[in-house]
């Protein structure tokens, strides 16, 4: 078994007396799509925030390629190749799509402390940004202001910005939230495309999507791992059904 790309050991995060994430130990294999699901309040978003460095763990460890990154800041994690997309659009509303993608792509320069050459001259950055927008179907919307895009387009831009940072590990926080059926299908297709050759940790509520694109599914309840396995295993698990209070999963 190859060493997992990402590993958490007894990862815990407390808010006062409440343990939102409670002793979660998981291994995420490289090159696979891993879904994390669970009822509301299960700790999924907290878990993702712990992985992306936006929250500090109370206890436990996170290892990325064997490196201890438990105390790493979001910018350090990003530079290690961990990309993140957000549940609510976290863009640059007054900047154009092209500029948003640019900023994301520019982050891959060894350093943006470059003061004298105009930014446009860094062709590699422009190319990377353009490619990311292209993959996400936003090439036609380059000049549009991010704040004025439609909801679905903003989701696409979220993903484009993440892609432009050329991550090896993608952390996706409910990328399908609030999307209509057709838009959701489009984004699922995009995600399938994007997942090729990369590792994905996906937090989602949309079960159709989860079961269609995931290789493993982890179910979190009350901050703890209830079940983990292939989509079929999870789908057929009685314990999982019960946790969702009789919700139709399959």
């Amino acid at each position: 078994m190859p060493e997992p790309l990402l590993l958490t050991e007894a990862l815990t995060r407390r808010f006062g007396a409440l343990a939102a994430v409670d002793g979660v130990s998981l291994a995420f294999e490289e090159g696979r799509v891993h879904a994390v699901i669970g009822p509301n309040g299960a700790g999924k978003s907290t878990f993702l925030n712990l992985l992306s460095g936006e929250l500090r763990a109370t206890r436990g460890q996170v290892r990325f390629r064997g490196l201890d990154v438990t105390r790493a800041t979001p910018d350090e994690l990003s530079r290690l190749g961990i990309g993140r997309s957000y549940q609510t659009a976290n863009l640059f509303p007054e900047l154009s799509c092209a500029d948003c993608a640019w900023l994301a792509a520019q982050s891959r320069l060894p350093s943006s402390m470059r003061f004298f050459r105009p930014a446009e001259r860094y062709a590699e950055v422009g190319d990377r940004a353009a490619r990311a927008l292209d993959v996400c179907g936003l090439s036609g919307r380059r000049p549009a202001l991010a704040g004025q895009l439609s909801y679905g387009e903003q989701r696409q831009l979220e993903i484009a910005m993440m892609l432009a940072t050329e991550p090896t590990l993608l952390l996706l926080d409910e990328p399908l939230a609030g999307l209509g059926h057709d838009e959701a299908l489009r984004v699922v297709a995009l995600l399938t495309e994007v997942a090729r050759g990369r590792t994905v940790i996906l937090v989602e509520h949309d079960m159709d999507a989860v079961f269609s694109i995931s290789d493993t599914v982890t179910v979190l309840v009350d901050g703890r791992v209830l079940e983990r396995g292939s989509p079929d295993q999870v789908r057929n698990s009685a314990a999982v059904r019960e946790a969702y209070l009789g919700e139709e999963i399959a």
Partner: protein
Amino acid sequence: MTRRILLLAGALALGAVAFSGDRFWLQFLGKAMIGCILAMSLDLLVGFTGLVSLAHSAFFGLAAYALAGVTNRLGLVNPLLTFPVCLLAAAAAALIIGWLSLRATGVYFIMVTLAFTQMLFYLFNDSPALGGSDGLYVVERPVDSRAAAYVAIWAALVLAYLLLARILRAPYGRALEGIRVNEQRMRSLGYPTRRYKLVAFVIAGALAGVAGYLDATLYGFVNPAQLGWRQSGLILVTVLLGGKGTLYGPALGALLLAFIEHYGERVTEHWNALIAALVIAVVLFLPRGLAGLVQGGRRA
């Protein structure tokens, strides 16, 4: 394009005054241009990075006092020696104060910069050894003639503008813009944002130091009032008045304020109230400043 031409014309006109030999205009416009340097450098922080700093006058005053110090105590007069020293002093102070202040965010940051600027004010105001509230004379200025000082100021203004415009078009400038709009997102994209803000703070502080050095050169006199929060507030006023985030706007704001201050003093004893009314009016009715009227673009 027309804006470029207008700016160029303005710069040339200002430069031409150097040949006029008119004592009043050399002094007045020299002072005004120093205000322009202060305004533009503060705009880097306020308009482009989103940092409202009240410490700007501290670096202005520090460099001025540094000149008084090295000239009066060490006998150094040659600008080739004194200028780098004063510039370094301002930049070092900006590094320290910036590093401490940037540990705070939002309004905390504003309050902390205010506290540091007042600390420096009291330091100079309360120490007889440093001149006290009366200030100090610079026994011998780096340049003798008023015209020469004017030319130096003019050159500094032009260079400062070109430098800032360049920086803002470079990747660094783009990063600052991203930080202003959504700093948290910039961090998750991989930018160590605090470092970028610190660099901006130091660049701005260094330029404020240049302005302070030139001010001491023009007047041959330094005093604590240059360091206090009133002064910082006035520089902020010029930024708002001219239009933040445009670079040339704040420079215009500084020129306008210089005229208002000068003629206001003649019209009424309570000209401070005039400035107050102006500030309040601009905040309430013209938030984008003069540049907003012109509807110029964002990037200089």
